[in-house]
Structures are given as C-alpha cells and as structure tokens.
C-alpha cells in the first residue's frame, strides 16, 4: 500500500519508510509527518513511531524527526512543484493527490479580512491512503434498495471519521452504476452522479475518474457540493446522486432539491448515530422531515468497514439480507 504514496515522499523520508516491515507497509492507513517531531505511521488500527532504521517503536524518543527541509520538499512534491496552483486547497487545509490520497495540512495560517487565506509554513502533514475496496457495498446494497422503484432509498451513511464512509459510498456508486443488484433484480444500471468536492470519491485526474465508479457514472470533480448537486440535477439527469460529507445548510438545501426532483440521494455525514446527526442544525431539518429512507451506521470497532446497523426512516433496524424471509424477498 505504502508504495502508492512514496513517490511524493522526499528521499530522506522514503529511505525510512522503505525499510518498514512488509506487514506494516501493507496495512498502512496514515503517514503523519510533523516538522521536528517523530515520524508516525498509523496502520491496521494501531500506530507507531518510525526509527531511522525502519523499525517501529511505541516511544517517540529514538524516532526519526523530519527536518524543515523535508517538510518544504514534501510540500513541493505534493503540489507538483506548484504551490501557487493549490491556493484553494491550502485555504481548506488539504490536498488530494493522484490516486485519491488525501493529505491534511497544518501550519501557520495567513489571514485576510479575518478569514484564512492560506497556510504558510506548512509543518504538519497527514497523508491518508485511499483504498478502493470493491464489494464492500454488496452487504449494504440489498438493505438500502427500493425494490419496487428498482433503485435505492434516500440514504444517509453515518459514521465517525476513518470508518470507511467514502469507501462504502464509492462502492455503492459502482454497484448501482453497473446494475449489480442482488440476484432477483434484473441487472439494470442507474445513471449515477457523483459530486466529488475533495476528489476523494472518484480520484479524478483531469476530470477522469481513476477509481472504478461504474460505466454510467458522471463525476463533477472539485466542485462545492451544493453547487455541484444543482448543476448535476440541471444538466446530467442522474437517477442517483452521491455526495460525501454533507453538513452545511446549503448542502441540505441541495439534497432537498434533488429529492424533490425525483432523484435518489446517497450522502454521508460525520457522526456516531442518526441521533448525532439530529443535533446538527443544518441536517436536523432533513432528518425531521424523514427525507432519508435509510440510515447506514458504520463503526470502526467491527473491522475496517463495519456496518453496525441499517435503519429506516423511523429508526427501525433493517435486518441483513440472509435473515429476510423468502416471502418478503420475492416481492421485488
């Protein structure tokens, strides 16, 4: 896994990470670079500090400490030697690199009219490895399906960070687009529209998705969610619209608009449970109006992508497909 991001690491850091044991390299999730502080790697649920010889330790004392030079170089490589072309990203605090890997940035901010203009002196990097796990959506799709309409219910995926929201909805997009419905439905794909504000879902390169998101999928890359959803509705006639991490008032408004236009929406939001979502002012309205027909709750403790529960609009759990009696199943 780690080799996918190593082309962006400056030689000094790469020398350290390349000596890591294969097991750690394969299960790596995050590489955290902090100037003057120990180099950290998060893998398979745990973490460790990297020593210069590539061994891992729980103690930061003997760990490799990236220098100023390392950090400057890392930023240069991440931005393709063109910091100036990443002004918007530096304002928002993260860069998405080729392959959909997201790099969070921290440092000293420069303000203009009281708003963050950009991050200068970037000295903290969180390199998150994107992974395409196909078929993670297979277990979820039957439970969010609207068999009568031959599509999906409006679905909100709720999960704390790092539990696989993005991976799950990416795979749902792929399955719906290919028409890989569970066996008793004819394999008819739906037109899918993805609004990918952070280039994480489809990992577009010049607008072309690098992840397999399905043959009937259109992607609006790098576009603000609310605006992108409206553009999609107006121009691309999607049947299912997929957005990641909604949370602002205008996002909710756009979701509402899409739903009124007869488009099914699959969205994700940060939270531990649907009740959490209810507390967020922007999303409360949506939840109260019972717009969403399904809530998928993910959690980290059940393995990498653990589906804790699938609930319907009233909060009643939808059982996993194997426990659905065959009579009900035949209805589709």
């Amino acid at each position, binding site marked *: 896994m780690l080799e996918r991001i190593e*082309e*962006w690491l*400056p030689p000094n850091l790469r020398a350290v990470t390349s000596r890591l044991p294969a097991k750690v390299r394969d299960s790596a999730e995050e590489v955290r670079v902090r100037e003057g502080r120990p180099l950290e790697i998060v893998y398979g649920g745990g973490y460790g500090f990297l020593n210069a010889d590539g061994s891992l330790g729980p103690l930061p004392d003997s760990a490799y400490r990236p220098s100023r030079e390392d950090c*400057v*170089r890392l*930023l*240069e*490589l991440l*931005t*393709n*030697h*063109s*910091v*100036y*072309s990443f*002004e918007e990203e*530096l304002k928002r605090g993260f860069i998405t690199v080729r392959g959909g890997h997201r790099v969070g940035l921290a440092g000293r901010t420069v303000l203009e009219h009281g708003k963050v203009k*950009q991050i200068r002196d970037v000295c903290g990097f969180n390199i998150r490895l994107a992974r395409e796990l196909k078929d993670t959506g297979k277990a979820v799709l039957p439970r969010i399906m609207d068999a009568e309409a031959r599509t999906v219910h409006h679905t909100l995926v709720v999960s704390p960070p790092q539990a696989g929201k993005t991976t799950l909805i990416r795979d749902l997009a792929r399955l719906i687009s290919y028409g890989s419905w569970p066996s008793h439905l004819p394999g008819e794909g739906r037109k899918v529209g993805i609004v990918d504000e952070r280039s994480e879902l489809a990992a577009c390169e010049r607008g072309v998705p690098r992840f397999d998101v399905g043959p009937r999928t259109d992607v609006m890359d790098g576009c603000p969610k609310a605006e992108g959803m409206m553009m999609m509705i107006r121009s691309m006639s999607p049947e299912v619209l997929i957005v990641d991490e909604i949370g602002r008032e205008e996002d909710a408004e756009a979701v509402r608009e899409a739903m009124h236009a007869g488009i099914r929406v699959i969205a994700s939001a940060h939270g531990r449970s649907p009740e959490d979502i209810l507390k967020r002012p922007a999303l409360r309205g949506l939840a109260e109006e019972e717009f969403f027909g399904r809530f998928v709750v993910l959690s980290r403790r059940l393995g990498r992508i653990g589906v804790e529960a699938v609930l319907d609009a009233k909060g009643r759990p939808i059982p996993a497909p194997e426990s659905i009696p065959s009579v009900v199943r035949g209805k589709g």
Partner: protein
Amino acid sequence: MKCMIKLIGALCIVFAGTMLGMYQSLQLSARPRQIRQSIQCLQRLETEIVYGVTPLPQALHAVAGAASGPLRSLFEAASRGLMGKEAASMREAWEEAMASNWSHTSMKQAEKEIFLQLGTLLGISDREDQMKHLKLAVRQLQGEELAAAEEQKRYGGMWRSLGLLSGVLIVILMY
C-alpha cells in the same frame, strides 16, 4: 615558392584575426538579444503561473516551446527534470538544467545570478508572490540588457577592427 607559402600563412593569420574579432562582436550583440529573449520567457512564465495557474513542469515546457536556441534547451531540461520519476526539487532540477545549458548562451555572470536566484523561488509560494519574484527578475534583466546594449555599441565595432588589425600586426611583425 617560399614567398608563396609565407603569403598564404599571412593571409591565414589575417583571416583568423578577423574571425576572432567578428566572433567577439557577435557575442556582444548576442547577449542583449538573449537577455531580451529571457525577459520574454519569464513574462510568458508569469502568465502561465499567474493567469493560467499551470503546474510548473507544464508551464516550463510551454515556455520552452515558445523560445529558441539555448534558452529553449534550458527550460526544456528544467521541465524534464521535474517530470522525471525520481522526483527532484525545483531547485535541483533548475541548477542541473543551468549547469548543462548555460555555457551555450552568450549571457554573463550577472544574468546567471538572476536565473539561479529565480530557481530557488519558483513554485514554492502563492501566485502573488510568484508574480513579484518574476517581475523583479524581469526588471533586473532589463537593467542588464541596457548595460549589454551599451557595451555592444561601444565595443562591437572595436572588436571587429581590432581583430583585423591584430592579424595584420602579427603579419607585419613576422615579416
């Protein structure tokens, strides 16, 4: 016969002297021209960066495409250095490109300093900042261009006649 060989030798010396003078004066006239070209290149680079927001490797490539002669190879080499698999930093790629291409230009140390300085600054800041650095480099080059043009006016003709005359002088001394 001996006289004949002597005459041919003398002609050769005069010819060589003239050519040497011509070459020197050509260098003098090439310098302001190349500085002018560099200014155009940097202005183009500024447009690519500030208005086109083109990533640096592609921007350098575009600049190379519009340039000619040694400047073209310089920008081309820098662009190639950045696009290579073994990710070099801009500074390294630029210094390498300068090392292998600068000697083919007629420009002097002052211009080299400006170019090298620029290499440490390109790409590492926001657009506003990049614009300032590029504008400053252009202004410095314009100063050098004036000086170079002045020098050419003053010494261009001198070198040409000096070459011929020194050739003749050597011949006279030899006879």
